[in-house]
């Protein structure tokens, strides 16, 4: 666990989930994996406002966003984010029945999907990949 904490402690993750219990569960999982900075929002509008408040060194590394939400769906959140950040890793959290969402989300360059219910191991794998992406970007831009 100490090693995990070292791996992911620099990540800054935004979780967008309207269901309170699911939100708490995902947050708990991330904290257990060693992520220190977990930001949570109950809807898309709140998430976009929060993202807008970040700048410079405090940029979010990953967005974990529920697909089905009232007022603003996950795809809407994705569309809005893509207008100002085409490269921000965006994981769409989908239910088993959201097959059509795959096609639509691809059109807006969704990074990847994670299907509910997901295990710690699946989440750890996604975080590992995000970490590798950040590291590669830093290495090639150096």
């Amino acid at each position, binding site marked *: 666990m100490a090693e995990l904490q070292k791996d992911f402690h620099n990540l800054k993750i935004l979780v967008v989930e309207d269901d309170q219990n699911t939100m708490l569960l995902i947050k708990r999982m991330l904290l257990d994996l060693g992520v220190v900075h977990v930001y949570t929002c109950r809807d898309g509008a709140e998430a976009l406002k929060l993202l807008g408040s970040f700048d410079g060194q405090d940029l979010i590394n990953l967005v974990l966003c529920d697909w089905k939400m009232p007022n603003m769906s996950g795809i809407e959140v994705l569309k809005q984010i893509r207008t100002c950040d085409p490269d921000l890793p965006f994981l769409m959290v989908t239910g088993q029945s959201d097959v059509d969402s795959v096609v639509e989300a691809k059109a807006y360059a969704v990074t990847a999907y994670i299907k509910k219910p997901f295990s710690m191991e699946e989440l750890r794998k996604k975080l590992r990949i995000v970490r590798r*992406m950040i590291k590669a970007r830093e290495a090639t831009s150096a």
Partner: protein
Amino acid sequence: MNFARRWPGLNALFSRIPISSGPDSRLAQLLRDRAVRDVLILTPLVLGAGTLLVTQDFFETFVELTSRYENFELDNLLVAGFPASTAITWFSYRRWVDSVKENRRRKAVELDRDELREQLTQVQKMKAIGELAGGIAHDFNNLLMVIDGFGRRAASNLGDKQILEECLNQIIQAGERGTALTRQLLVFSRRQAIEKVVVTVAEVIDGIRGLVKHTLPEKYEVRFDLENPNAKIETDPNEFIQAFLNLIINARDSMADGGRIVIANKCINDADGKRSVQFSIRDTGHGIDKKTLTRIFEPFFTTKARDKGTGLGLAMVYGFVQSCDGRIEVKSEVGQGTEFILTFPRTDNPIVRAKEADASDQYGLGETVLVVQENESILAMVKSQLERLGYNVLTANNAFWALEIDEDYAKPIDVLLTDIIMPGMSGIELAAAMAETRPLMKTIFMSGYSDEANKTGQLPKGAAFLQKPVKLNHLAMVLRDIIEDEERLLAAG
């Protein structure tokens, strides 16, 4: 002659009177800055009240300077001096006011003219862009119609082999025409990676000779006048021949009843000492008027009927010559024929020939290739082609998924075949990330733009670059070479 010294009383009366309009000290300084030779003042008693005799220079300078200021009140006049000149004129308040008004009116007209000229230039630019976009849309629309139409026909006649063959041939031809059109556009925009090699004048002209036979009927006489056939240039021989073919076709079209075309070459030294090889193609056609001459290199500009020319030929020639660091000039007069002069830098580099790609000996031996490509159709097509060649193919739509495969796939991945530009993470970054876990994996980068090819300095050592669209036999050759660990870096399109 200094009259002020001769008439000191008059000097005291007229020589030091401040100007009320505008910033006096600035005007005084401006007047003082000019070379002062003499001051000439005649008393009002001679010329009438408020009238001075001054040099032409002084009057014009004074009018120019005071034209900026709104206030015409001239209670006083400071005369600090004016440049010596033989032209003398009279200066009165009324004349000064009228001259300033005329000066301002003239400047306003000039400003309007400049603004109109600028607006016209912008309108012309937008028109050219509009024509370009319209032309591109038109040509690709035609190709899409062919592909769609014959595709549907094929789908409705799956059992008829003859119809299927006809339809598929049409689709393939449309695809090739589309590729050629894209290539022309990219060459024009200088975003096409042309394959430059060292060739002699004789080699490229031999290629042209062959085409001329098929392109020109006997009523056209073609002469070749080569002063330096062994001189060498660095160019893409296919694109060179294509460029010359465009010029030959234009020459032919300008001589409906036949005529003579002379293709010549010579070596020159430019004004700055650079050695160059010059090619010229001269015809005895109807020539080009001055107005048309200014537009001939514009894309989609043509004086021919729509079905006789796309208007891209000369634009392509222009783009190609620029890609070779050369220049192109045209000389023409109506009724006197036209001459195009293409100048390329001369080189002493040796001639190197690359081997030809042949798919027949380029089969895979079960090696694993990870293909990363955002476009699903291209991904499916490449997967199918590589599997047909005998490779084990994994696919991913973006870098994230590619890294997921990297995490999950326990066996070796021999080659990563990836786009450079991808959302989220570039192909270069992906290759760097995968190199940590798979150091023996080779990488082939793909892109539709030569700009990315120019980043070969950023590509990992031993990586290859392919410019899209990629032909199967070329991909097969590059894959085979990279797997067999050839040392030369392949930069092919």
